[in-house]
């Protein structure tokens, strides 16, 4: 394009960034929240007071529960909730004589009892939203997210090219200088966190790689199913051969864990209570950076080892580590906090980039009082996207506490509440002048986040003072995090209001005495 390589890359950076920035912001916010998915779910199910248990006895408890509750099933499986929270998620496939609407899943707590908690999707919903969105078909949602991620990758790479002095940007953050400050914020958040942002974008694409680029598989396999069988085998239950008692699973789990040196994450039992029974023990996805599990198959009657699988091969291991890096399940608490902060930096990067687009163009408007429709649209969409989603998430948490417990489709109503709140901010942004809308929506978000711990204290026995006294770190830190976020939104609202007041004062002064020199 004309104007040289750097200019054309700057152009590309601006427009790919703007076009998909709003969606990217939503992906970044919900994806960042997913680093504390388990903790959010714990907070959203306050009835559950988990006691930690070691995996082997947990799986043994799960098998006892399934023998009692789902004896005729052709397949049982139990997934550990991970090292950060106790409990197991159970699934089973009912036999032919079970009724069609018989349950096929349950959640057990650390003590092996069925979890009775309010119906909610908790942190899992926010995690899922960051690549499947909501209300629209997941297949197309993933394409939309993939297009946004690719635009992000191109925006990052062209952004790097556009840069003149990348090292200096590490240390440059000038506040209170209008456009220059926004550019500094955009640069610091993206340059300082560049390794993370580049990593998270590329590994995000790799996580759904065959969805976007199925042709690499099609090159070597006539059918996608054959590739899946080869890469991720998933044996089906065999022919039944007559009743036989199931061997105790705890020693098998322990044997597998001893061999791997890492914790088991799940077990699958095919044809339980039959001579053809198989027990497949798999390693935990949060036990290392590699997410693809190792597995050992045992005979379900004799306990003899039949098969062992270890994902191997350079490409498989690379992919496994890339997805592991993206999801960060392996991370300890310190690393998890760093992941979270890096994710926040990504949110700041996208948001400041979107705002920078308007700030830069406002100065060049022929009449700043009456901007053209395109400018107004971007301005309003910025408010709706940047403030609307956080406000919606706060309302999601509030709805979790305020909706009555027994209602039909409760978890879906929590989600509806989030989108209604988000939409309300969008409508507000359209209806009000942009500056007022910024102040008002930021204040609304601050108010919503500050209400979360208050409503929690009023509706449960696990409010902030009680959690602090009981040393319940997850509940206490969740409430404190809400207050910190509220303070952030409050500060932002004040800042915008202050700047407006400053501008108004400037204008009055200029009217009173025509200035000899322009104040920048």
């Amino acid at each position, binding site marked *: *394009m004309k104007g040289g*390589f750097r200019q*054309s*890359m700057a*152009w*590309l950076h601006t427009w790919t960034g703007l076009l998909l920035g709003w969606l990217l912001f939503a992906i970044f916010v919900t994806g960042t929240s997913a680093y504390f998915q388990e903790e959010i779910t714990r907070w959203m199910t306050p009835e559950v007071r988990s006691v930690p248990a070691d995996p082997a006895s947990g799986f043994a408890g799960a098998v006892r529960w399934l023998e009692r509750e789902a004896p005729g099933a052709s397949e049982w499986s139990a997934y550990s909730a991970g090292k950060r929270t106790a409990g197991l998620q159970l699934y089973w496939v009912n036999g032919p004589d079970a009724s069609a609407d018989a349950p096929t899943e349950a959640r057990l707590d650390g003590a092996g009892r069925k979890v009775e908690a309010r119906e909610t999707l908790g942190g899992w919903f926010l995690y899922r939203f960051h690549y499947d969105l909501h209300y629209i078909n997941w297949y197309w949602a993933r394409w939309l997210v993939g297009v946004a991620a*690719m635009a992000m*990758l*191109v925006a990052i*790479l*062209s952004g790097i*090219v556009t840069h003149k002095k990348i090292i200096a940007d590490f240390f440059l953050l000038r506040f209170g200088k209008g456009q220059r400050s926004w550019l500094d914020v955009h640069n610091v958040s993206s340059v300082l966190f560049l390794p993370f942002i580049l990593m998270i974008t*590329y590994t995000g*694409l*790799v996580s759904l*790689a*065959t969805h*976007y*680029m199925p*042709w*690499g*598989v*099609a*090159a*070597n*396999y*006539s059918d996608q199913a*054959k*590739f899946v069988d*080869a*890469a991720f085998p998933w044996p089906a239950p065999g022919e039944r051969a007559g009743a036989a008692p199931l061997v105790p699973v705890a020693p098998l789990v322990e044997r597998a864990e001893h061999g791997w040196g890492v914790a088991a994450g799940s077990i699958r039992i095919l044809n339980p209570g039959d001579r053809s029974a198989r027990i497949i023990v798999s390693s935990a996805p949060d036990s290392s950076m590699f997410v693809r599990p190792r597995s050992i198959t045992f005979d379900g009657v004799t306990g003899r080892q039949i098969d062992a699988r270890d994902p191997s*091969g*350079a*490409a*498989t291991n*690379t*992919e496994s580590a*890339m997805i592991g890096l993206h999801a960060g399940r392996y991370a300890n608490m310190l690393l998890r906090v760093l992941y979270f902060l890096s994710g926040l930096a990504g949110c700041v990067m996208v948001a400041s980039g979107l705002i920078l687009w308007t700030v830069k163009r406002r100065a060049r408007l022929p009449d700043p009082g009456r901007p053209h429709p395109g400018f107004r649209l971007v301005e309003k969409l910025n408010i709706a996207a940047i403030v609307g989603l956080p406000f919606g998430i706060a309302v999601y948490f509030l709805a979790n506490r305020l909706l009555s417990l027994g209602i039909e489709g409760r978890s879906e109503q929590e989600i509806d509440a989030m989108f209604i709140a988000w939409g309300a901010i969008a409508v507000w942004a359209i209806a009000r002048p942009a500056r007022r809308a910024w102040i008002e929506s930021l204040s609304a978000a601050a108010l919503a986040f500050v209400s979360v711990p208050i409503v929690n204290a009023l509706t449960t026995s696990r409010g902030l003072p009680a959690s602090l006294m009981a040393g319940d770190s997850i509940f206490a830190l969740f409430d404190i995090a809400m207050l910190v976020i509220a303070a952030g939104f409050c500060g932002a609202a004040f800042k915008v209001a202050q700047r407006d007041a400053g501008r108004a004062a400037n204008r009055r002064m200029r009217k009173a005495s025509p200035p000899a020199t322009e104040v920048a």
Partner: protein
Amino acid sequence: MSRGTRILRGARAREITARALAAVPLNYAVTSALTVLIARLLPGGGAQASIGATMLSFAIFAGLAMTAFAVRSVARLWIAFVGIALFAGVVDWMLIHWGGRL
């Protein structure tokens, strides 16, 4: 707006459209053809080669998308992209036709 500016604007809009079409749909075809080629040529068995090629495809796509906006001539850009896609596509077809698939 003068007639000259209008003509210039129209030319710029057409150029950006041509580049965007090369950078997204045409790029997807080029990248797919190259991904198939890499998946056929990488060693280590079908699964490894397919996974490896698929992971590389995103770097290829991003690089080509940037190229589409970096090179000077739009005509040469299209000729190059279509040429690469056709060449890789024909080689892909021959490799699959004679080598077979799993």
